[in-house]
């Protein structure tokens, strides 16, 4: 399957982030066309394109827009989720660094389509230069008349505020993001009401991922049929596939949905020289892991789901045979425990205990009953947590115990990790501690259920 550069197409140009570069490549044709259309027709066009949310859940974008209640004269908001933090996910940040105008044009079109006159871009605070580029892109768009009052003489007004977060994975959850944007602790809200009905400031709100919104201009300019000519029947269009880890040429590969990891690895020069694939994530750490048995699974929403995982954010983290799966999963679990917002008990307490059990297994102090204990803990979190963070925390554990149970057991039986941690590194070194998990028990394990 061929690669299809759409969003990435301008990234290799000189000063790719400047408005002039973007306009020179045909940028803002979508907005100009959109402003001649009826908003309802734009919503329909995005529905017809088959675009589904690129932030992980894969919900149809046009349908989400269509959920807004009829205008009541009050404000309606667009909030762009640019809080990219799912481990392994690294697509939106390079997009905004290289070509922020793609996003700004998408924001303008979407705002027009849903009747919004003040849009927000919530970008995580830990990417300083991306924030600079976004602020600058918005400024350039105002000066060129793509934002502000009476845009392109259409009578449509739009203000855009770029808002920097302050470090919290949970703010990638859309309702936690809204609370954070309102100046509160970023904790998820009970749904319903859904953001479409009562979102930012309790007003109708659309929350969309960066890549979803950035995909809109080309859909408008080139047509829904053009977009749906790529991809599979139910997973249409192009998407960024992010290869990382033990792969020869890691990076961003923009391809139609439905491409396979085998095809992508061929393009990326294969797994690290002299090594072989052991396990991988199809869509970030919250998606159940795959092995080489899944190399030919089409990377679309349905096929990955049918194979027991989720397409997620197309964050393909590649781990070769040098990596201890217990170490990998234990570290992800540290992450979920650290990032649990503390609002609900299953996630707050559950991730804490998952961490304790995994640390002792990794340190060689595990007991024979620990694997069943882990699975029991997962069973008490999955579907019982307030939001998807808790569910995500269980995915790497349940999937890895299923696929690599013997490796867990070897840590318990052998009273330690059988792997040399330095073998997985890209450079030679002598480990200062033989069992990283053991060293972490005291250092990081001190925190309790709260976010910090």
């Amino acid at each position, binding site marked *: 399957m061929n*690669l299809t550069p759409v969003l*990435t*197409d301008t*990234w*290799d*140009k000189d*000063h*790719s982030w400047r408005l002039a570069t973007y306009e020179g490549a045909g940028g803002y044709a979508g907005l100009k066309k959109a402003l001649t259309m009826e908003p309802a027709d734009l919503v329909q066009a995005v529905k017809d394109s088959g675009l589904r*949310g690129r932030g*992980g*859940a*894969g*919900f149809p974008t046009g*349908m*989400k827009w269509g*959920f*807004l209640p009829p205008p009541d004269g009050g*404000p309606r908001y667009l909030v762009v*989720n640019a809080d990219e933090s799912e*481990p*392994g996910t690294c697509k939106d*940040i390079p997009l905004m660094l*290289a*070509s922020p105008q793609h996003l700004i044009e998408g924001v303008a079109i979407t705002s027009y389509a849903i009747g919004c006159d003040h849009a927000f871009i919530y970008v995580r*605070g*830990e*990417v300083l*230069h991306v924030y600079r580029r976004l*602020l600058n892109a918005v400024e350039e768009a105002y000066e060129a008349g793509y934002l502000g009052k009476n845009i392109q003489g259409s009578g449509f007004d739009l203000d855009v505020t770029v808002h920097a*977060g*302050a*470090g919290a994975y949970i703010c990638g959850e*859309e309702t936690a993001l809204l609370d954070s944007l309102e*100046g509160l602790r970023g904790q998820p809200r009970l749904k319903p*009401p*859904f953001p479409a*009905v009562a979102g930012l*400031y309790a007003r109708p709100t659309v*929350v969309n991922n960066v890549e979803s919104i950035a995909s809109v201009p080309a859909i408008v300019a080139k047509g829904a*049929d053009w977009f749906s000519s*790529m991809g599979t029947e139910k997973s249409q269009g192009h998407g960024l596939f992010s290869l990382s*880890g033990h792969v020869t*040429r890691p*990076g*961003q*590969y*923009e391809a139609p949905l439905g491409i396979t990891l085998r095809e992508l690895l061929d393009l*990326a020069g294969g797994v690290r020289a002299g090594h072989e694939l052991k396990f991988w994530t199809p869509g970030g750490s919250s998606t159940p892991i795959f092995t080489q048995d899944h190399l030919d699974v089409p990377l679309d929403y349905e096929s990955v789901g049918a194979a027991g995982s989720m397409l997620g954010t197309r964050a393909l*983290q590649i781990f070769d045979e040098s990596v201890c799966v217990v*170490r990998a999963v234990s570290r992800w679990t540290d992450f979920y425990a*650290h990032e649990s917002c503390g609002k609900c008990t299953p996630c707050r307490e559950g991730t804490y205990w998952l961490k304790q059990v995994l640390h002792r297994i990794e340190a060689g102090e595990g007991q024979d009953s620990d694997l069943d204990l882990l699975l029991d803990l997962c069973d008490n979190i999955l579907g*019982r947590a*307030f*939001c*998807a963070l808790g*569910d995500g925390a269980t995915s790497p554990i349940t999937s890895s115990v299923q696929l690599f149970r013997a490796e867990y057991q070897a840590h318990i039986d052998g009273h330690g990790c059988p792997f040399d941690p330095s073998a*997985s*590194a890209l450079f030679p070194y002598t480990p*200062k501690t033989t069992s990283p998990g053991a060293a972490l028990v005291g250092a*990081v394990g001190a925190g309790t259920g709260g976010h910090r």
Partner: protein
Amino acid sequence: MRATEPATKPVEGGPVETRTRYDADTLAALTADATAIMERYPDPRSGLLPMLHLVQSVDGYVSRDGILFCAEMLGITAAEVSAVATFYTQYKRHPNGTYTVGVCTNTLCAVMGGDAIFDELSDHLGVGHDETTDDGAITLERIECNAACDYAPVVMVNWEFFDNQTPETATALADKLRLGEDVAPTRGAASVCSFKQMSRILAGFPDGRADEGVGAGEPTLAGLKIARERGWTAPDAEAPATGESQAEVPPVTGAPGSSAQRQPTTPADTEVGKDKKPGEDAK
């Protein structure tokens, strides 16, 4: 919606009867900046996160005075401000070094060498996680995934990218920082600014350096490069459509199925319109 005016009206020179200990000039400058922040939002309370970044740009951390200042500007209690300040990891509760050096030790970076880099830096600097060197130059941190996995292992200095690091490059970087020399990120501005300067940018006051640095590093362009070499492009707009638009019946607004930002948990979730809200199983 909340009131659009802060309950404590700022007056010239700062809030009336301030409990902060800022001198008059500092308070006046902070008040002007905080007012500008609040004006960006329909509800001034939305300005709290940038306002806390602003406080850090003056004090180098979220100080007692900073908390009181935010509370007075927004007409909320100091406890309400503290609740927010303690939730987010970028807000520091004790004076930060001039540079935050963050080593990604989330799984992928860790196994690729992040663990070794952190251990080496920790030994080299004589500090652990969230500790600051005696000279006040560096606060060392373990950080979570920073969305640069294709550049692993990654080190961030004041949240600028230092890609593809090793223990040697990281310790050399730290040495330069302690000597007060300029360091240039792989993808970012031409040099790293101080923690306080960074905090001011994050408060929404840009420093005019957006045009510095590259647009993309090599991994970012990996796929595009292959497409260029092989003459691959996306189909042109005239290409005949092969896909069909989805026949769909939208769920009722607000009903289960009308929101999507969560991970599917069962195969049924991946079918359009059949997903349920998070936590529904708990009932």
